[in-house]
């Protein structure tokens, strides 16, 4: 393991990071309207696989796969991959209500389409809570016309702010809305619920949650009973109490 890790030189690691960053930025701008939520790059010896996570995969694929083929050609030409050395796949985001990026884009498009700030934000907060989040907060900051700059916050549920649990439980996204007068900032913070199966939230619960188990039912004792505690089931262990008794 260590040898394999050492073979990936620092230069290669940085190059991988830069590739991922540029790809992510390009896809964020290109697929913003299709609910783009992230990308994963898998390097295999024969080719590189790029998996695009989005909410509207139909739009990402395009008519008969046209758009995704165009994107593949773009990536291949830009990064100088050989023919068919790079493949793009689109994957649907399960439960977009728990994806902060998708919800931030949703607020952005609602505002750009002329919805009132309160309606747009409350709509998103309600959708997120219905999708099973523990808490949600949407902040719209900036200067609207005929008003002073301010930050409008809309929230529901439970939210933590400090410590390692924030890294496990909270997803955040920031988006900019460009207006004539300046820029409005949109921040969406979603606190996930703990999910033992690990699919829709972290596996471990919050560190300060204590579950008190119900006491076990005791069998009714009608007459005195003696139970020998010194002899556990397995044979080798049975030798131990005898040794102790000495």
């Amino acid at each position, binding site marked *: 393991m260590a040898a394999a890790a050492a073979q990936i030189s620092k230069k290669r690691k940085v190059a991988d990071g830069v590739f991922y960053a540029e790809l992510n930025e390009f896809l964020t701008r290109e697929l913003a309207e299709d609910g783009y939520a992230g990308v994963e790059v898998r390097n295999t010896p024969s080719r590189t696989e790029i998996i695009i996570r989005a909410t509207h995969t139909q739009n990402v694929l395009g008519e008969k796969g046209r758009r995704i083929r165009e994107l593949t050609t773009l990536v291949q030409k830009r990064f100088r991959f050989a023919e068919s050395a790079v493949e793009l796949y689109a994957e649907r985001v399960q439960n977009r209500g728990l994806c902060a990026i998708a919800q931030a884009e949703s607020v952005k498009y609602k505002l750009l389409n002329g919805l009132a700030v309160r309606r747009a934000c409350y709509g998103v907060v309600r959708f997120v809570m219905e999708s099973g989040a523990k808490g949600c907060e949407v902040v719209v900051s900036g200067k609207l016309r005929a*008003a002073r700059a301010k930050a409008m916050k809309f929230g529901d549920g439970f939210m933590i702010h400090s410590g390692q649990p924030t890294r496990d439980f909270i997803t955040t996204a920031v988006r900019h809305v460009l207006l004539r007068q300046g820029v409005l900032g949109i921040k969406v913070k979603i606190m996930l619920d703990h999910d033992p199966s690990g699919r829709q939230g972290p596996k471990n619960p919050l560190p300060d949650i204590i579950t008190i188990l119900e006491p076990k039912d005791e069998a009714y004792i009608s007459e005195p009973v003696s139970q020998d505690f010194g002899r556990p089931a397995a044979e080798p262990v049975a030798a131990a109490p005898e040794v102790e008794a000495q």
Partner: protein
Amino acid sequence: MAKFVVDHMEDGMHEWCVLEYKHMISVVGKENMHFSSLSDACLASMPEELKEAYCHKENVLNLPGVDPKDVCLLDPSATEPLKPEDGDTFKYFLFGGILGDDPPRDRTKELRKLGFANRHLGPVQMSTDTAVNVTKHVVDNKVPLDQVPYIDGPEVFFSKHESVNMPFRYIAETKEIITKSGEKKSIRKPIMPPGMLELLKKDSEQSLDF
């Protein structure tokens, strides 16, 4: 008594401006309050209480009876802070009637270009009525700038689910309240114009215009 001049730099008489200007008049008195650079449309849509102060169409350089040497501009990028002695040096204190951005876009430079002496009121942007109120405390009541009680960036709660954060400096007033459990507590609240809370709530119902 110092006189206060606000140069209206917004493109209309918005409700926000009206509330702040009314607040200023109630703090310093209508005979000490001047508004300049008011367009015809603004003058037409101004409410009666504002017209009781001095309203001028001209810009601040051409105000009747005002000598530019007696004017002090309150400018966030000035090098010297406002001091109580400035009340004796200057007769008029000039403010930009600007609904500000965060971070500020320095729209006060339009007034700075006109060459008045300037003073600042601290590092944090204030609303225009707060600036007038602070200036009055410093030059009329002779309170040094750093002894005025401030509250920065207050958050106003409308409900458990909604709040608004105002990234400006306000003067703080201490109030005694009785909490739900019956104990007395003293809290600090920002001094905002009457009617501002309803206006903040209404602002969230606006949609963006491009």
